[in-house]
C-alpha cells in the first residue's frame, strides 16, 4: 500500500511558483507556509507581498495577502497589525525592497516594536529587473549596473541588515539563516517558526534574513549558486542569531 510521506503545504496555493529554476525563494515560501500551518495561524495570517521577484507571492501564500508599494511593506504591515491586532501579519521582502528603498520603514517599524514578522530575502542582486546591483551585492560582484564589479570606493560596502537591526533594542529576534543545504534549511525553518511564535506571543518585531540564490542573474548553475552562498556570501554575512528575545526594556 502506498503511503503519502510528503505533500505540498496547505499554506501554499496550487498556483505554480513563478521563480526561476534553482532560485531558493521556493524553499523559503515553503518554510513560511509550513510555519503558518504548524502554528495553526494560517487562517488569521495576512502577508505583505513586496515589489521584486516575490511581488506575486500573493498568488502563492494561501492566506489573506496585501500587495504593497516598493519598500513600504513594513508601513503597510504596521497599518494592518494596528487595525487588527488579532491577525498574524508578516512581510516577505527582498534586498531591494527592504535594504534599499524601504530601509526607513523597516527600521522604524522595528524601533516602534511593531508586533510583526519580517522575512528578508538577501540574494545580493536585483532579480526581477534583470540583475542590477543591490545594496547587498558583494565587493567585486559583477552586475548589470556594476559591470566592473562592486567597488567600495564607488558603491560602498554591502549592507549587513541583520547586524544593523541587532542594534535596535525593540527588535526582539534578529537572525540570519541560509538555505544552501538541508541542514541550513532545517535551521532556517526553526528561525522562521520562532519569528512567528514571537508575534503570536506578543513579543514584538522579528526579522529573519535568509541568504538566497539567484542563479540566472549570477550567471551560475543552481549547484554553483548554492556553493557561492556558502563560499562567498556566508563569509561576509555570517549565519547566526543576533538577538533572541533579549529584555529590551533594559535597553
Amino acid at each position, binding site marked *: 500500500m502506498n503511503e503519502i510521506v510528503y505533500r505540498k503545504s496547505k499554506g501554499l496555493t496550487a498556483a505554480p511558483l513563478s521563480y526561476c529554476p534553482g532560485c531558493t525563494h521556493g524553499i523559503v515560501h515553503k518554510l513560511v507556509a509550513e510555519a503558518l500551518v504548524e502554528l495553526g495561524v494560517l487562517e488569521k495570517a495576512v502577508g505583505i507581498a513586496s515589489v521584486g521577484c516575490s511581488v506575486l507571492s500573493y498568488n502563492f501564500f494561501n492566506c489573506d*495577502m496585501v500587495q*504593497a*508599494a516598493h519598500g513600504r511593506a513594513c508601513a*503597510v504591515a504596521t497599518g494592518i497589525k*494596528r*487595525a487588527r491586532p488579532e491577525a498574524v501579519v508578516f512581510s516577505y521582502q527582498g534586498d531591494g525592497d527592504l535594504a534599499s528603498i524601504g530601509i526607513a520603514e523597516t527600521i522604524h517599524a522595528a524601533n516602534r516594536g511593531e508586533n510583526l514578522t519580517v522575512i528578508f530575502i538577501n540574494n545580493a542582486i536585483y532579480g526581477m529587473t534583470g540583475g542590477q546591483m543591490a545594496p547587498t551585492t558583494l565587493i567585486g560582484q559583477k552586475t548589470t549596473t556594476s559591470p566592473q564589479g562592486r567597488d567600495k570606493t564607488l558603491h560602498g560596502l554591502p549592507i549587513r541588515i541583520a547586524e544593523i537591526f541587532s542594534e535596535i533594542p525593540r527588535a526582539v529576534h534578529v537572525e540570519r539563516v541560509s538555505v544552501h543545504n538541508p541542514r541550513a534549511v532545517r535551521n532556517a525553518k526553526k528561525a522562521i517558526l520562532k519569528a512567528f511564535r514571537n508575534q503570536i506571543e506578543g513579543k514584538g518585531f522579528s526579522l529573519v534574513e535568509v541568504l538566497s540564490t539567484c542563479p540566472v542573474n549570477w550567471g551560475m548553475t543552481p549547484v554553483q549558486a548554492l556553493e557561492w552562498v556558502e563560499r562567498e556570501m556566508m563569509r561576509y554575512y555570517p549565519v547566526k542569531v543576533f538577538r533572541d528575545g533579549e529584555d529590551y526594556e533594559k535597553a
Partner: protein
Amino acid sequence: MKRLMKGNEALARAAILGGLDAFFGYPITPQNEIPEYLSKHLPEAGKVFVQAESEIAAINMVYGAAAAGVRALTSSSSPGIALMQEGISYLCGAELPCVIINVMRGGPGLGGIQPSQADYFQITRGGGNGDYRVLSFAPENLQEAVDLMREAFDIADAYRNPVMIAVDGLIGQMMETVDLDWEVPKRVLPEKDWAVDGKSTRRTRRIVNSLYLDPAELERHNLKLLEKYRKMEAKEQRYEIANMDGAEFAIVAYGTMARIARSSIELLEETGVKTGLIKPISLWPFPKKAFENLPESLRGLLVAELSLGQMIDDVRIVNQGRLPVRFFGRTGGILPEPEEIGEAVLRLKEEVA
C-alpha cells in the same frame, strides 16, 4: 450646540464623529493641531494613533489599515501630500477607502506656510501614476469643513476610494463656531467583504492588490474604475450658487477665496454691478452642473484663486468659450482684499463693454 473651535481641531473632532478608527500622520505646518488633538483623543477611545516616520510611511500605513477594513485617516499639508501621491495611486488602484485632510500652504518646493490654493492640480489631477481620481471637497468655512469631514468616511466607503478634504491654512488655523451635533447624511454601505481582517472564521482568502500583469486584465480593471468615477461625476458634484438672479458677472471661487469674494460681491453691489458667486465645493468631480443654467444676463466669469491660475482650466473646459473668462489670483500666502477682486470684475466689465 455651537462651540468655538480652531479649524484643525474641529476637523479632528469631526473625523472622530465620522467613525475614525485609525490615524497615521507626520507633523507639518499648518496642520499640526490635527495629529496633536488625535494623539490625545484616539487612544482614550481605544482607537489607533501612530506618528509615522514620514508622509510616505503614513499613507502606506493608511493603505494597510484600510485594507484591514477600518476607517483610516491621514492629514498633511502640500509638500507632505506631494510625498503621498504614490500611496494615493495605490489606494485608488487597490480600491481602498480612506480620508486625507490637506491643509494647503504655498509652493512650489518648500514654499511657505501661509494659506494657498496652489495645489488644485495636485488634488484634481494627482501626482501619482495611472488613470485614477480622488474625490475631493474644499469647504469655505469651519461648519462646511466639519460637515464634509463627518460625511467623508461614508463617501469613501461607498465608492471604495480615497476622499480628500482640502482646506487652506487659513481655515486650519482660524477659530469659528461650529455645530457638531446635527445629523449629517448617512449612506447605506455594503459590507467590506474584501477586507483582510485576520478573521479565521472565513473560508476564502482575500487579496488586496493593484498589480495586473496581463494588459487585458489591467484594461478591464481600469474600465471598472472608470465606471466608478463616472458614477461619482454623476452623483457627487457639489457647489453653491449665490446672488445669481439678474447678475451681470459671476465670480468663480472656492474655499477661502469664495469667502473673500462674498465681500467683493457686496462692494460691487454698492457700485451697481450685480455679481453672482459660483462656489465649487467638490473640486473633483468638478461641478459642471453649476454652469448649466446660468442666467442670460451674465456677460463674463472671473475666476479667483489663491494661485496663479489652476481651477481656471476646468472653468474654461466647462464654459466652452461661451462667456469671457478672466483670472484674478494672489499667491505665496497673500490673501487679497475684497476690493482687489472687485476691481478685477470692474476691469472685466470694461473689457466686455
